[in-house]
C-alpha cells in the first residue's frame, strides 16, 4: 500500500510540475535553430533620443526555443533592444487565462511602463490590469479588445499565405493539397482561404483538405493529422501550427510542404521545403516603444496595429530548391503588387465552398470582414465548425 501511495505522489508531483513547466501551447520543441535575420529599422540606429525612461516587459505563453511563434516574437524583442539600446524583461511560460492577471499586475506595480502580451488568452487579464494601472501602456498581440491604455497588434499573414499558396499550387502533381490547422477561428480560417486562393490562382482545379487538431502545439497530434491527409492522397501540405511536425510527416512521405511563423528550420527539409509565411515583429515593437518613450501610448481604436507586407511585419520566408525560378518570379510580381496596393488576395468574385457568393466581383474585402471571416472559400474541403 505504502509503495502504491508513493508512486501516486511521484506521478502527481511530476504531473503538477510538468504542467507548470510546459503549460503554454507554444512550449519548447526543436531548438536546433539558426539565427534568423532581424532587421531593425535604420532610422532608429542614429544616436539621439534617450530611452532610459522606458521600462519594457514582454509576456510569452511559451519559450523562444519553439522555433516558431514565440521565437519570432523574441527576435522582434531583440530587434527593439538593439534599436533603442535598452534591455527588455521577458517572462516565459506564463499560462493564459484569469491567473495571468497577477503577472500583469506585478509588472505594472514594478514600474514597467510598456508591457507586451503575445497570446490571445491574455486579453481579458490585460484589460483588467489596464483598468487598474492607467499610467502603464499595454499592448496585446492577436486580440480585439482595447482601452485608453491598451492597444492591440497583429498582422496580415494572409498576404504571405496567398503567396505561399502559389508555390504550393505549382508544386502539386495531383491537385490534392492538405492543411493541418489548429482551431476554427477567423485567423486560421482566413489563412486557409488565402492559401487556397493562392493555390487556385495557378491551379484552378486544385482542392485543399483541412484537418483540425484542436491544439496550437502538440507535435504528435499535428503529425498524425498530417499523415492522415497524406494517406487521403494529398501531395503538398500547408499548416497553421506552432511546431514543424507537419513538415516531418511530409518529409517521411516525400511530399512538399509550406511552413509557418519562422523559416529557421528550412534547412532540415532540403528537398521538401517550399516556403513559409513568417513574422518580423522588430519594426512594430520598436515603434511602440518609441511612442511610449515620447509620452504616448498606441491605444484605443487608433491603437489597433495591423502589420502587413508593406511595412515588413509579414514576409515570405526562403524558398526551397524545388521552387522553380518561374514560380519565384510570379510570386515576386504578386508580392510587389500586394506591397504597392494594386492587388489584394481577397478580391471578388469569391464564393464560399457551398457555392454562395461572399465577395462580389471587383470588391476588395474590407479588413473588418476579414477579421471575422468564418466561411471557407471554394476549393477548401472541410467545415469551419471544426
Amino acid at each position, binding site marked *: 500500500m505504502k509503495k502504491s501511495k508513493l508512486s501516486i*505522489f511521484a506521478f502527481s*508531483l511530476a504531473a503538477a510540475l510538468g504542467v507548470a513547466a510546459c503549460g503554454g501551447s507554444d512550449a519548447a520543441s526543436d531548438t536546433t535553430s539558426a539565427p534568423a535575420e532581424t532587421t531593425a529599422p535604420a532610422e532608429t540606429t542614429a544616436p539621439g533620443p534617450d530611452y532610459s525612461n522606458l521600462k519594457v*516587459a514582454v509576456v510569452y505563453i511559451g519559450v523562444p526555443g519553439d522555433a516558431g511563434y514565440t521565437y519570432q516574437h523574441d527576435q522582434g524583442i531583440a530587434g527593439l533592444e538593439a534599436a533603442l539600446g535598452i534591455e527588455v524583461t521577458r517572462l516565459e511560460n506564463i499560462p493564459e*487565462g*484569469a491567473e495571468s*492577471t497577477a503577472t500583469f499586475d506585478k509588472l505594472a506595480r514594478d514600474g514597467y511602463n510598456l508591457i507586451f502580451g503575445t497570446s490571445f488568452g491574455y486579453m481579458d487579464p490585460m484589460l483588467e490590469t489596464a483598468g487598474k494601472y492607467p499610467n502603464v501602456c499595454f499592448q496585446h498581440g492577436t486580440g480585439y479588445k482595447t482601452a485608453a491604455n491598451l492597444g492591440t497588434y497583429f498582422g496580415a499573414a494572409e498576404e504571405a499565405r496567398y503567396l505561399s499558396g502559389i508555390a504550393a499550387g505549382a508544386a502539386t502533381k495531383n491537385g490534392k493539397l492538405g492543411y493541418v490547422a489548429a482551431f476554427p477561428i477567423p485567423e486560421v480560417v482566413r489563412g486557409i482561404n488565402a492559401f487556397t486562393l493562392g493555390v487556385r490562382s495557378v491551379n484552378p482545379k486544385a482542392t485543399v483538405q483541412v484537418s483540425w487538431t*484542436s491544439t496550437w502545439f502538440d507535435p504528435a497530434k499535428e503529425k498524425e493529422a498530417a499523415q492522415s491527409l497524406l494517406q487521403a492522397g494529398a501531395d503538398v501540405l500547408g499548416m497553421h501550427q506552432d511546431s514543424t511536425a507537419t513538415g516531418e510527416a511530409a518529409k517521411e512521405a516525400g511530399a512538399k510542404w509550406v511552413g509557418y511563423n519562422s523559416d529557421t528550420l528550412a534547412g532540415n527539409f532540403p528537398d521538401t521545403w517550399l516556403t513559409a509565411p513568417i513574422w518580423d515583429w522588430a519594426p512594430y515593437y520598436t515603434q511602440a516603444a518609441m511612442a511610449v518613450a515620447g509620452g504616448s501610448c498606441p491605444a484605443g481604436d487608433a491603437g489597433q496595429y495591423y502589420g502587413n507586407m508593406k511595412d515588413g511585419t509579414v514576409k515570405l520566408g526562403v524558398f526551397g530548391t524545388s521552387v522553380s525560378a518561374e514560380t519565384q518570379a510570379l510570386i515576386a510580381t504578386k508580392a510587389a503588387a500586394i506591397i504597392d496596393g494594386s492587388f489584394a488576395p481577397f478580391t471578388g468574385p469569391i464564393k464560399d465552398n457551398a457555392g454562395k457568393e461572399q465577395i462580389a466581383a471587383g470588391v476588395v474585402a474590407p479588413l473588418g470582414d476579414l477579421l471575422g471571416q468564418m466561411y471557407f472559400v471554394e476549393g477548401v474541403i472541410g467545415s469551419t465548425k471544426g
Partner: protein
Amino acid sequence: MIVGKTRIQLEARLTSPRWLIVAVPVLSVLLASVVGGVFLLLTGHPPLRTYGDLLNNGYTSFYGLTDTLGLATPLICTGMAAAFAFRMNLYNIGQEGQLYLGMVGGAWAGIALAPHLTPFIAVPVVLVTGALFGAAWVLVPALLRARLGTSEIVSTLLLNYVALNLINYFIFGSRGFFRDPSTPFPQGRMIYESARFGAFGTTNTYPTLLISMFLAVFLFWFVRSSNYGYETSVFADSPSTARYAGMNSTWLTTSVLLVSGSLAGLGGAMYVVGPAGKVDPGLLQIGLGYAGIVVAALARYNFVAVILTAILFAGLRVGGSALQASSDPVPIAIAVVLQGAVLLFALGGELFRRNRVVITRVIESHQVMVGEVS
C-alpha cells in the same frame, strides 16, 4: 542497504514523536534550499538574493501574498478533494477534470439561472451547481469502483482528458451556449455580474478564499467528530472490519468519491465566480487539479494543513514566475527546479517521519549490534 560493515535499514515507526511533525517539513525545506542554492550558484545566480526575491514575490510582500492567496483559493478545494478521497484509500486523481466540469457547471448557472435570482443567492447557486457538476463527473467511476471494484485511478484519470476536450469543444469547436455570441473569436460567454464576486481592492484575492478556508476547517472537524468520519476511518484501516461492523461499503465508497468530486468542482466554480467569469480555457494550462494531489499529500490529508500547503505551493508558483522579472532575472526553468526541489524534499521527508533509520553494524554473520538514529 549495506555500506562496508554497516547496514542501513528503514523501519516503520509505530508512533511519530510530535517534534518530528514540525522538524521534518522544516528540515525538508531547508535541505531543498541548499540543493536549489547549489543549482543557483552553478547557473550564476546569488542564492540568497534569489530566495529573498522568491519569498518577497510569493509570500511576504502585500501583493505577493494576495496573489498567492488568489491562486491558493481553488487549490485548497482540489487539495481537499484529494485528501477526502485519499484518506479512505480511494485514489481519485480526476480533480483536474472535475475542476473543469465545476467551471462548466458554474458558468451554466451564472448564465442560465443568475438572471432569475436575487444577487444574494446567485453566487451560492453558481458555487453549488459547480460542485454538483464536479460530483457528476466522478459518479460513473465511483459506481464502477463501488459495485465492480474497477480501479478508480484509471477511470478518473482518463475522464480528465475527456473533460479537457469538452472544454476545448465548448470554446473552440462549437458556437454553443458557453461561447460569447458577440464575436467570432473563441471566447467564453460572461456570466451575469450579479453572480460574481469582486476582488478585495486592487488585489487578486476573492471572497471565495474565505469559503475555501471555512470548508477546510469544517471538514477537519467533521471527519473527526461525525459518525460518517468515523466510518470512513474504519473503512480506510480495514474494509473487512468495516463490513463486519455492518458499515455499507458501497455507500461509503460512492459517497466519499462524490464529495471529493464536488470539492474539486467547487474549485472550478470559484474560478468562475472570481477571476474568470466564464468558461476560460486558461484553466487548462495551470494544472490546479494535479497540484491538488501534491497539496493533499504534503498536508498528509489533514484538511487544515491543506490550507497551508496550498499557500506554500501557490507561493512557489507566483514567486517563482515573478523571479523572471527581478533585478537578476532567473529563467522560468530554474524557478521550476526550485519549486520541484521543495516539493520533492517535503514529500521525501515523509519517509523519515513514518520510518526510522536503523543502522546496524555487522560484526559477525550471526551477531549484530544495534544502534539507532531517528
